[in-house]
């Protein structure tokens, strides 16, 4: 067997895991590892400009591909800089492996230079973490890290590696384990058949049912089964913000996503339903509004791989713990064998009601001539220009909600957003991670001037590695979402939500060798976007000057039920 140093074993393990790109930043404790990276060419390293970006890049790749993203950083500040990125991945159950250098084992606890207890710092935001105690255990630890990150309910795993574990002089036999078994970690492989039967019976009897997909459908690679189930049943289909793309949004059964800024018809349908079939969503507070007023007439079937997500915020009547794909397959089989079919008469009435809701509030903004571009128009134009087929990545704020509302997604893994943590700065690096791995696809970042400035140093990374993402900056010269809350709840006292001294984006972008375009008039909008997306090999930043006053609606009224919504500045349900 080959004798390898810990550093070489680490890199070989990544090769054997099939890792193509890792995202990182070097420093003292990681230098042996960086040397091992230099001496091979299978695993390619992308040098970011801030470690948080490395984590978001890995995260973006993971969201688009379903495979764990890999981050490599040094100890201390390198490691702590990834924490926001790890927390972002954790909240959305994204598989990620974060390799952190650490000071030499004998220095741990002595407040050595660049020492941080990264296992402790990251503990509340990781699925699990490992600290390497001996170089020879590196292959097994890496195998376990990937296994834990990507199975069950996925999540980030931190591996802390003291510098002496990777010393070039200490060599050990290398063999990458073929299998892992962790006695204390056994994710469920299928749902309870009795419960699944009961669920199917309820679906066949329901009069006002709704199918509700969460991010779990996408993470569980079950969008096709979910879509098949929806078609078989003929039910209305909604999703959480994270579940966008689980079902084709241009199909007539799709009623849009629900929650705080969800569609009017989705929130109304949910509220009045008699059966909610929830697959892989976790009923978080942005989706349910006040749980005590949540859907008073509905029974709830809740399928999730994580038992702790079931009955956490709203009580499930039929809990089913299992991987969504296998549970959906079983449901489809049972439906195929069923003697009865869905209640078509009741469903026809239900659809009539839903279509009335849909018709009554289908347009929620008004474009006026000679007025600033509405942000919604920009997203709609982008949808047309990209044929609805781009990877759309967002930051956090109003632009994020407009992107979710006005781009129509027909495929899973195309809508990429920080839903759980709501991390401004996530978008740009995440988009880079996707573009790098999917060079032939359109990758569009929809951002705001606030969010973009949190990670704009990565323009430099894009120049170095040639990453031609398209950036649509919905420039409202303010922290729009904050401003909206201040308009509504603080009598328009805009405390610290206006961005003075914005950079000249054109000069800024061009200084890195990229292309910058600016749009101020509606008639220039679509042609400019056409032009931007036609420049396949260029990073293009399109600064779209949008109406700073435009609010996002609908907006659920805090503490209300699903149907309590503001529909405009003056109108409510």
């Amino acid at each position, binding site marked *: 067997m080959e004798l390898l140093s810990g550093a070489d074993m680490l890199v070989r393990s990544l090769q054997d895991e099939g890792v193509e790109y890792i995202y990182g930043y070097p420093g003292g404790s990681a230098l042996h590892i960086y040397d091992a990276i230099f001496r091979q060419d299978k695993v390619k390293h992308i040098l970011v400009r801030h470690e948080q970006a490395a984590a978001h890049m890995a995260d973006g790749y993971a969201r688009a591909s379903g495979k764990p993203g890999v981050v490599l950083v040094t100890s201390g500040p390198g490691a702590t800089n990834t924490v926001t990125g790890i927390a972002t991945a954790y909240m959305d159950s994204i598989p990620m492996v974060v390799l952190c250098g650490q000071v030499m084992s004998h220095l741990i606890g002595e407040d050595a230079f660049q020492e941080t207890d990264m296992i402790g710092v990251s*503990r509340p935001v990781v699925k699990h973490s490992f600290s390497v105690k001996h170089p020879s255990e590196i292959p097994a630890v890496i195998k376990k890290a990937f296994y834990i990150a990507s199975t069950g309910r996925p999540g980030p795993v931190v591996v802390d590696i003291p510098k002496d574990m990777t010393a070039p002089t200490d060599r050990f036999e290398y063999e990458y384990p073929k299998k892992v078994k962790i006695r204390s970690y056994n994710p469920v492989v299928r749902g309870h058949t009795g419960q699944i039967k009961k669920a199917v019976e309820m679906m066949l009897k329901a009069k006002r049912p709704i199918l509700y997909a969460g991010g779990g459908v996408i993470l569980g690679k079950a969008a096709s089964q979910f879509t098949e189930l929806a078609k078989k049943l003929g039910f209305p289909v909604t999703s959480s913000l994270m579940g966008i793309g689980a079902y084709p949004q241009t199909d007539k059964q799709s009623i849009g996503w629900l929650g705080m800024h969800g569609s009017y018809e989705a929130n109304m349908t949910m509220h009045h339903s008699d059966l909610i079939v929830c697959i892989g969503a976790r009923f978080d507070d942005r989706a349910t509004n006040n749980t005590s007023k949540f859907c008073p007439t509905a029974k709830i079937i809740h399928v999730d791989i994580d038992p*702790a997500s079931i009955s956490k915020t709203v009580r499930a009547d039929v809990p089913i713990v299992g991987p969504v794909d296998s549970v959906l397959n079983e449901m489809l089989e049972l439906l195929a064998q069923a003697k009865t079919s869905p209640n078509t008469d009741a469903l026809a009435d239900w659809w009539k009601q839903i279509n009335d809701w849909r018709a009554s509030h289908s347009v929620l903004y008004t474009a006026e001539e000679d007025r600033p571009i509405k942000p919604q128009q920009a997203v709609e134009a982008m949808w047309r220009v990209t044929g609805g087929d781009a990877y759309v990545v967002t930051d956090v704020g109003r632009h994020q909600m407009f992107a979710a509302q006005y781009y129509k997604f027909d495929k899973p893994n195309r809508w990429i957003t920080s839903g759980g943590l709501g991390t401004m700065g996530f978008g740009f690096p995440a988009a880079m991670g996707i573009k790098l791995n999917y060079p032939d696809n359109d990758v569009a970042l929809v951002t705001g001037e606030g969010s973009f400035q949190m990670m704009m140093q990565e323009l430099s990374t894009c120049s170095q590695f040639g990453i031609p993402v398209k950036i649509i900056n919905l420039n409202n010269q303010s922290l729009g979402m904050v401003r909206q809350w201040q308009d509504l709840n603080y009598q328009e006292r805009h405390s610290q939500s206006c961005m003075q001294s914005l950079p000249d984006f054109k000069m800024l972008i061009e200084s890195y060798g990229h292309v910058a375009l600016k749009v101020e008039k509606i008639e220039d909008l679509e042609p400019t976007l056409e032009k931007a997306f036609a420049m396949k090999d260029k990073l293009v930043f399109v600064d779209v000057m949008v109406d700073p006053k435009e609010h996002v609606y609908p907006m659920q009224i805090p503490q209300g039920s699903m149907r309590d919504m503001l529909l405009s500045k003056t109108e409510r349900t």
Partner: protein
Amino acid sequence: MRHIISILMENEAGALSRVVGLFSQRNFNIESLNVAPTEDPTLSRLTLTTIGSDQVIEQITKQLNKLVDVVKLVDLTEGVHVERELMLVKVKAVGAQRAEVKRTTDIFRGQIVDVTNTMYTVQMVGDNEKLDAFIQALGVNGILEVVRTGVSGISRGEKVLSL
């Protein structure tokens, strides 16, 4: 309601901090906690008592089960079980107090495990309530120091918590 949750977990660095961290992170409360390795040195047994509604306890056990280091757990209060806690109490014992403390200790079936001219150290084993009652019987004035291990427990009958 008060619950006793008994956990079999990997005897590894960091495992305990994950359990304890979970409680503060999720706003669950811990009344008492103890932990020690088992007959199998790769495993530790952790027992904790907590108070919460059924829904909270359900979340606690589900979240604990999710921790990769947790092998198995049981809520002992769901079935019949034996519950014990050990307490050491240093009590002032001079003059008439000496006989009084000795008598009270006997009544509670405790033992005096250390003596000086002015004090006794009493060892007491029992459930929570018995230990509380003993402290009350002694009266706070005489007590110099109290150490309690926190509750340990095991289910009655054939049922075992093992690999």
